[in-house]
């Protein structure tokens, strides 16, 4: 009998059907991958199991008995715990304090005893947690471990992990997978939500696929392959390799020299970073999140105050122009056409409550002497972007906030390349995007490369970086760990370089 059976589950938000008549079984002691594109309803489905949402229709059975799970606390009573994509930890508390937080145990709060229990859990599964360490001193991977221990401490037998590897380096992912295997050995049931196929293949026993809120099918991982899973996920045949055309006449376009940046609270974010981005090639930037990628791009775009160094732009005729100390308007005034697709699309690149037309004119609204805005030209541009990039929207008067992640990104990238840039900076351009949209974005970047644009691509998925980029700059703690050729790079080596300057010696 299945440990958990979900039957005919339907969940609706407004007019969006997030889950439509989904039935899913989770067997005891297995690792199940829940696979699907973004917006396919994976997280929603699991949130109903963990008591965050309540299904609009359908029934959940645990060990064959019908149950209602109205809150996360009730979910724990049934032994179900979920590790969310965004951690829910109190920064100034220690690991142990966070783990016992909200538990109503008999007697007074005894952190020493809790610490012992936490150590025992860690020893059983191979975690590495210091119960007395404060959360703000922890790396992302350590925080995730605390979240997992928190769930186990509450006696969960069924663990749900929502895209746990999105924030981890390849090495950290390996460690996590080892822990998950230990849990399985101990009889725990694990559900892992993901859209990365190689992870499904590596870790899970069984895979269930959702598409557009509907249940598509399930199979044993050993009996399927990446191509079949993709086709089920997307609903049609998709080619899985990323194109990498040869660089077009690469010449230096942006020369960064000894760039040093401190954040407003005086933390060193970039430490003497030097590199050159060439026209006609894609320069990848790899690194664990928060290693200075954001500051680097914002410094080039004129949005970051810089302590030291220089950023020079090389015109086609060889003349050089210093960009540092200039704001975005002044940079544009130099005749430098610089486009920037920032990480925070709705917080920085676009205005969520405004419609497509108004977002198109963000860059261009100043044009002309009139005190009034011209909405005709941006409207045409919006229609063109919708048309050419196949943006799925009811119209150009829809607020961009209502669009799905992939479509938001298409609008942003569409606007940025419409100004025919000579430099295109992009940060996590495919984060949160499904396979289809991701490939559209890769294609757009490659087109820009063919147009002799200097493309800088900050990415988190090493597989993609290695396939797409001509050269990869690896950052580690704000310093350049090395620059490698995309064609010759080795994934493990780059992973090592992300955690240790130069990549260390032990694997050479």
């Amino acid at each position, binding site marked *: 009998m299945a440990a958990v059976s979900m039957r005919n589950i339907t969940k609706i938000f407004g*007019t*969006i059907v997030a889950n439509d008549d989904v039935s899913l079984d989770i067997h005891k002691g297995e690792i199940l991958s829940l696979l699907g594109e973004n*917006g396919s309803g994976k997280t929603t489905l699991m949130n109903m199991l963990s008591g965050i949402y309540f299904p*609009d229709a359908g029934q959940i059975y645990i060990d064959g008995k019908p149950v209602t799970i109205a809150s996360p606390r009730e979910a724990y009573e049934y032994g179900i715990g979920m590790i969310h994509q965004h951690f829910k930890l109190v920064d100034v508390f220690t690991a142990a304090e966070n783990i016992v937080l909200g538990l109503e145990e008999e007697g007074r709060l005894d952190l020493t005893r809790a610490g012992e229990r936490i150590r025992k859990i860690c020893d059983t599964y191979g975690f590495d947690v210091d119960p007395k360490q404060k959360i703000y001193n922890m790396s992302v991977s350590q925080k995730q471990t605390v979240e997992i221990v928190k769930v186990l401490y509450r006696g969960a037998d069924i663990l749900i992990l929502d895209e746990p590897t999105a924030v981890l380096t390849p090495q950290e992912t390996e460690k996590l997978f080892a822990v998950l295997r230990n849990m399985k050995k101990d009889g725990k049931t694990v559900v892992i939500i993901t859209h990365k196929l190689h992870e499904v293949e590596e870790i899970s026993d069984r895979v269930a696929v959702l598409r557009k809120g509907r249940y598509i099918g399930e199979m044993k991982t050993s009996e399927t392959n990446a191509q079949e899973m993709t086709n089920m996920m997307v609903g049609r045949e998709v080619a899985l390799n990323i194109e990498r055309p040869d660089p077009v006449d690469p010449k230096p376009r942006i020369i960064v020299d000894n760039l040093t940046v401190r954040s407003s609270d005086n933390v060193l974010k970039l430490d003497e970073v030097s590199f050159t981005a060439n026209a006609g090639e894609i320069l990848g930037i790899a690194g664990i999140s928060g290693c200075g990628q954001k500051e680097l791009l914002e410094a080039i775009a004129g949005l970051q105050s810089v302590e030291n160094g220089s950023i020079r732009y090389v015109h086609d005729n060889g003349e050089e122009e210093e960009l540092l100390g200039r704001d975005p308007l002044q940079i544009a005034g130099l005749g430098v056409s610089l486009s920037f697709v920032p990480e925070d699309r709705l*917080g920085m690149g676009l205005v969520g409550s*405004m419609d497509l037309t108004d977002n198109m004119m963000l860059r261009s609204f100043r044009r002309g002497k009139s005190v009034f805005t011209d909405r005709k030209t941006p409207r045409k541009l919006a229609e063109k972007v919708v048309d050419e990039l196949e943006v799925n*929207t*009811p119209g150009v008067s829809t607020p961009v906030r209502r669009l799905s992640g992939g479509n938001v990104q298409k609008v942003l990238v569409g606007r940025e390349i419409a100004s025919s840039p000579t430099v295109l900076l992009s940060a996590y351009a495919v984060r949160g995007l499904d396979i289809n949209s991701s490939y559209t974005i890769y294609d757009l970047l490659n087109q820009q490369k063919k147009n002799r644009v200097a493309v800088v691509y900050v990415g988190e998925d090493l597989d993609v970086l290695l396939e797409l980029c001509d050269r990869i700059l690896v950052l580690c703690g704000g310093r350049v760990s090395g620059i490698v050729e995309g064609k010759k790079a080795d994934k493990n080596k780059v992973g090592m370089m992300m955690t240790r300057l130069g990549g260390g010696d032990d694997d050479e």
Partner: protein
Amino acid sequence: MSKASKSSKEPLIHITKRKTMAWQKAWLIRIASIVAALIVCAIVTTSATGLDPFSVFSKILEGAFGSERKIWILGKETAVLLCISVAMAPAFRMKFWNLGGEGQVLIGAWMTAACMIYLGDKVPTPILILISLIGATAIGAVWAGIPAFFKARWNTNETLFTLMMNYVAIQLVAYYIIIWESPKGSGKVGIINQATNAGWLPSIGSYQYLLNILVVAAVTVLMYIYLQYSKHGYEIAVVGESQSTARYVGIKVDRVIIRTLLLSGGICGLCGFLMVAGTDHTITTTLAGGRGFLGVLVAWLAQFNPLAMVLVSLLLCVLSRGAGEISTAFGLNQSFGDILTGIILFFIIGSEFFINYRINFRGSTKAVKDAKNAGKEGGLH
């Protein structure tokens, strides 16, 4: 789904956010909420006072529209409230919470009174009016500009700062009222230039309040156009939504904040000018009378749309005029009118909840069907 499989623990209601609603349906909800408010008002009236609610309601309308004079007064009051609300619009669109309307109006009024008193016998009235107008607008702008400068420069809290500026203005006016007091010892300024009418705004024909109403109407329409169609209005919207987006496209956020607050405070100053030179011809510390804050409420209820503010400020003035009427007609005190106003506002604000959220009751599958149908008709996904 069979009834038997349902456990008793299923929550009775759960609340889900709506995506969008057709505007007709939204207005239907708003109208329904006003009807519901009137019913509750009727019940409260009968149970608390024993009066016939319909006669109370008709007295409210009578108080607002009962005679030609009452209608003009209603127009005058609405113009003042509308003017302050419109002044709030650009600041609030930018998410700058200007709570200093009270002080900005008062300081504009103070400047106007000062010009009328000191220059009344020195310059001809048209020039005096021009000087007062410019002076009042400028000082209102400065009164809002100071907190804006500090906000832009050091990110101080504008809510507290603008609020404090109110007290400075009130104390300043209180001080000058003693200096300007007439007759001596009365503690009041009295009608300024009553004999010469120097610095008084002319009346259009015999309609004393018409000029004020027309000026405010023009300001309202201009503000609507400014916010909706000008480049400045666009910048204000971008800054309000996300300062990092604004910086990203090279909008100078500091400059926009200061510029917008100069405008907001300037219109408040203008309002003070209109009140002193146009209608009251005197000044007291309670000239704004809380309308600097009421304007905040109007701006929110109208969702920062200047044209919608016309309706909202009219409604509030009708209620307040009516409240005064029923207090005298039925021997109730003024507070009873406030209770009724409170009930009506509660329902109007509450209706926005029902426009934004849907409440699902246990066992109801209507929501499910609705959404599925809507999805099939071509939703976003």
